[in-house]
């Protein structure tokens, strides 16, 4: 059994977060249209979204009740 997040969802979420943050910064006039930050944010958050999916401390990291631990097969029983 292996616990992990959803990396594709994380990547898409990160990318969308980057785009929305860039858009917010731009439309509220916080950064100028020529700012490099606007093009750096989406790809950086895309990568961070994947990392987040694997490492986020959300929910249990232990298996839910009813799951058997990994044991080698025993054909004699």
């Amino acid at each position, binding site marked *: *059994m*292996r*616990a*992990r*997040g*959803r*990396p594709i*969802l*994380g990547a*898409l*979420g*990160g*990318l*969308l*977060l980057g*785009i*929305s*943050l860039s*858009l*917010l910064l*731009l*439309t*509220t*006039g916080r*950064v*100028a*249209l*020529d*700012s*490099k*930050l*606007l*093009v750096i944010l989406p790809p950086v958050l895309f990568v961070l*979204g994947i990392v*987040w*999916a694997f490492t*986020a*401390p*959300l*929910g*249990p*990291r232990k*298996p*839910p009740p009813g*799951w*058997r631990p*990994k*044991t080698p*097969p*025993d*054909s004699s*029983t």
Partner: protein
Amino acid sequence: MAAIRRAVSAALLLTVAICAAPGTAHADVITPAGACVGSGHWVKSGQTERSTAHQPSDVITVPRTDTVQWAGNIKGFALGAVGPRRPISGEVQLDLPIGSVTIDSWGRTSVRYANQGEHHYDLPAILSGIKMKLHGQHRESGRVVCSGSVFVKVKGSNPLVFGALGLLVISGGMLFFAGRPVFRKLWAFEDVNPG
């Protein structure tokens, strides 16, 4: 698209071109200082801007819709001044994160060394609130006579803010679920010994 480009070009060009007329001694968006001068007056809002009253880092806020009466001249020439015909060229460009786009340019030959006019513009709402850096230069006989840059912002709030906020909430939800663990069964006794 061409209409938007023309409208943006008009307002922004006017702002840059407009920023050029004698004013305070230390400020100027033009390099070299005073080589070209210009000014503009927004008819409805009553706003007046001069190139010598701003620094390149200044943000000039302009109305989304208005009529501008503009004037500009090369150093030492009064409005209406004429002289020997010479080739001229130049452009005004909008800086983007990568590269820039030319929103207006001029060329050929001219006998005029100063000019003025009036222009009505109506910019789309999606440009409101966005801080844009404009730069431009003017050449005479192939030599750069003056150049300058300034930030321009169109008055009003941008409707895209709401879209961006919505997208922010959606992406936050996606990241929340992306961070929740997914348990995958790799092997169990029952898998190889059914029943």
